Each structure stands twice: as C-alpha cells, then as structure tokens.
C-alpha cells in the first residue's frame, strides 16, 4: 500500500482547483438557455429511467436554488464537494494499492 498523506497534495494544485470551482458557474451560465447535451437528457417520454439512488446534489445544485445566482452558488458548492470527495477517494484507494518503498523518490 501507498501510505500517502493528504498533506502531500500540493497547495498550488489545490489553489488551481479552487479557482476552477469558483469560476465553474460559467459552465451553466453560458448554456442557460440551451438544451441538454445530446444523450444526457433528464427524462424521456414513456421510458421509466431506472431509479436506484437519489443523488444528494442532483444536477450539481441544491433543491430549489433555481435562479441564475442561486444555481451558480449551488454549482460552486457542488464543485467543492466533488473535488474534495474525489481527492479523498483517491487517497483512500491508494492505501489499498501500490508500492510503499518508494520514499526516496517522493517529493
């Protein structure tokens, strides 16, 4: 296993992700009046989408935050939650994987 500590995550990289999270609402504002991506429709006609799971932050937003401002805030919160979750899962996974005797090359 790789015993990488979370503190090994460079601060600069974290800062870059935070900047991207803060500007992420661009990703909904410039497509506000657009349709869904092809193939990413929410619901379609008579089919019953298989519901196995209720995502806590569906569509990267909080329930009822509909206005452009609130949806943007919800988007930023979702980006931050997602980034933290992804980093945590990766570090946890790395504890189950990999070589540990690589310390002299760590930096």
């Amino acid at each position, binding site marked *: 296993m790789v015993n*990488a500590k979370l503190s090994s995550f460079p601060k600069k990289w974290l800062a870059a*992700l935070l900047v991207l*999270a803060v500007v992420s609402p661009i990703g909904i504002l410039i497509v506000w009046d657009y349709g869904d991506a092809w193939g990413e429709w929410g619901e379609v006609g008579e089919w019953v989408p*298989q519901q196995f799971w209720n995502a806590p932050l569906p569509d990267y937003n909080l329930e009822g935050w509909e206005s452009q401002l609130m949806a943007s805030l919800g*988007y930023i919160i979702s980006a931050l939650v997602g980034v933290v979750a992804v980093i945590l899962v*990766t570090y946890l996974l790395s504890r189950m994987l990999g070589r540990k005797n690589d310390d002299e090359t760590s930096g």
Partner: protein
Amino acid sequence: MHIPDGYLGPATWITLFLVMLVIWFFAFRNANKNLGPRNVPMLSFMAALSFILMMFNLPIPDGTTAHMVGAVLAAIVLGPYGATIALSIALLIQALLFGDGGITAFGANVFNMGVVMPFTGILAYAGVRKILVRTKMSEPGKRAAAAFVGGYVGLNLAAFCAAIEFGIQPAIAPGYAPYGLSVAIPAMVSVHLLVGIVEGLATAAVVYYLADHRPDLLKLRKLAPRWMEGMLKEDIGEASEIAKKQKAPVEVKGGN
C-alpha cells in the same frame, strides 16, 4: 457524454460492466506495481481536474451542450491505466453524488471516457511525437502539438463509442434509447468535432506548461500496459531508471 440510467438496455450495460471488470483488474494490478507516493497526489489531482473540467458545459450552435473530459491529459501524465483509475473515481462521484451519468451506465461511461479516450488519445500522442521527432520544434512545442491531437482524437472516439452504444438500442433493446445509429452518430460526432478543439487546446496548454516549467511531472512513473511501454519509453523511462537508482543516491538531474 454521461449516459444516464434507462437509455442502455441490460445487454449493453451488463456487457460493458463485464468489460470494465476485466480492464479494472489489469489497471489496478498495474497500479499495485507502479503507484508510488509520488504519483498519488498527481492521480488525485487528475481525477479532481477531470471532475471539474466536465462541469464546464460549452454551448454548441445546434442548441445542445458538451464538455471537456481531460482523460488524455491524465493519460499523458499518469499513463493510460492511471487515466482509467482517475476517470473511474471522477465518474463514480459524479454518478453517486450528483446524478450525472447513470449507475447502470457507469461501466459504459467509464469505458467511453476512461478507457477509449485515454488509450486512443495516448496512441495518437505517441504517434504525433514520433512524426515530429525530427522537426526543429522545441520539445514543449512537440509535446503540445501531440497533446492537441491526442485530446482531439480521444474525445471524438469516446463520443463515437457513446453514439454507437445509444444507436444500437432501437435494434437490440426497444424501449430504451430511441434513436438509431443514423441519428446518434451524427449528433454526437458533430458536437465533439467542435468541442474536441477545446479539449485539444486545454490538453496542449497544460502539457506545454508542464514540459516548460515542470518536466519532472511528465516523467512520473506511468501506469501503462506492457505493449505500450515501447512507444511511451521517453516518458516512461523513470520506471526502469528508478529501479537502477534505488541503490545509488538520489540524483536530481533529469536527462532527456
């Protein structure tokens, strides 16, 4: 490109899950050998970067949207299996926390964005680098040009695969995605021929920056299948070098 639940019939999504089980086995076995403390931060950064890049929806003139993925960048820095693992994590969080991409379709989505895209992208990247090796371009320039092509090709082939998965449904699983290949392929491909330019530029920009400022980060140990080691050897060199250096004191200087 995140296929939701209810669009792929069971035959398709189960098959792609089974295919992914095999690929995950090889990817994790490779990671078990090659993942070290030094590339864990990069693996988590690439997974997080992909996660957030996919949130930047871009408007397409036909009224739909599409987004970057970042899988070829991850493949260039971590090797294609590294990209598979990074994208698996990003897509898992997207599906579970944000309902983006289905749970039954998780295997299909990882296959498209986490396997087809990084593997074809890194092959294109390696191919272009080979073509450019004799030119007078600067090293970062060569890498950036190759990265542009890699990002462009990878994203488009991933979209093409998604289109095929959608497009075969009317024939094999009535009641799921209703559009046949003649609709799905033009719809997905036309969009990604455009967004591929953005993907390519973003991939090239980061690779250029790394080659220019942090060449050490391009020489991290790669998670790649054996048959690819030959074509990636300039980048993959460290794996064998490390073994040699293990006894010798750490040498800071990197050659080319």
